[in-house]
């Protein structure tokens, strides 16, 4: 019964994370993974980034976004292994995927709130 009650919640978080991965993640990835390191845009001052990422509102948004993105990723990868790559170790796959997401979520909370 517990499993059934948790399942809709996971799907809800999967959808929320999917929307964020489509709407928010692209600009973050292009900006911070390519544009800033490769100098496509003028690099903002370090102090500006500290005050931006140290702002509690930014931290709240980023924490929520990272947690949802990780649940989205774990849930989808679980079914990729099960249906796509035919890994039929149902329980092991679920524990590993959600376990990794939980660790990632913990790391996200620690890192996001350490700035500033």
């Amino acid at each position, binding site marked *: 019964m517990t499993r059934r009650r948790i399942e809709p919640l996971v799907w809800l978080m999967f959808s929320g994370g999917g929307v964020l991965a489509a709407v928010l993640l692209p600009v973050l990835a292009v900006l911070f993974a390519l544009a800033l*390191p490769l100098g496509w845009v003028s690099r903002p001052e370090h102090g500006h*980034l500290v005050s931006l990422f140290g702002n509690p509102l930014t931290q709240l948004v980023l924490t929520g976004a990272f947690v949802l993105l990780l649940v989205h990723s774990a849930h989808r990868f679980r079914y*990729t292994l099960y249906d796509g790559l035919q890994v039929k170790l149902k329980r092991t796959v679920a524990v590993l995927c959600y376990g990794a997401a939980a660790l990632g979520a913990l790391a996200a909370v620690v890192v*996001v709130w350490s700035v*500033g």
Partner: protein
Amino acid sequence: MTEVRVYRRPVPTWWWVRKRSYFVFVMRELSSLFVAWLVVYLLMFLWAVGRGASVYGDFLNWASTPWVVLLNVVALLFLALHVVTWFNLTPQAMVVKLGSRPVPAALVIASQYAGLLVVSAIVLWLVVR
């Protein structure tokens, strides 16, 4: 009681490489790995920002090395596949109504791209100005 044993024909591991639509499906699902990588990358970025200007500078140097750039470009290609497929699926997953009329699928898809643009503009404005 005798146990009923059902024969299940085993599905080969590589069932999805034979047909284009199956292949795209598995690639779309594999975008999940790259979403996770990008979250990890962004966390490393934030961590470096929080440790001071010189650590942040070192991080940017590391992030501009060829292998990291290559990984991030590949990750962005998978993310693009996610964006397109996710937006296309939305009108099938939910019926959006305006009053009593259902909103046409093309409009639902277009409004999501508009959302992507607005969010991107806000983030760019916050970070680079």
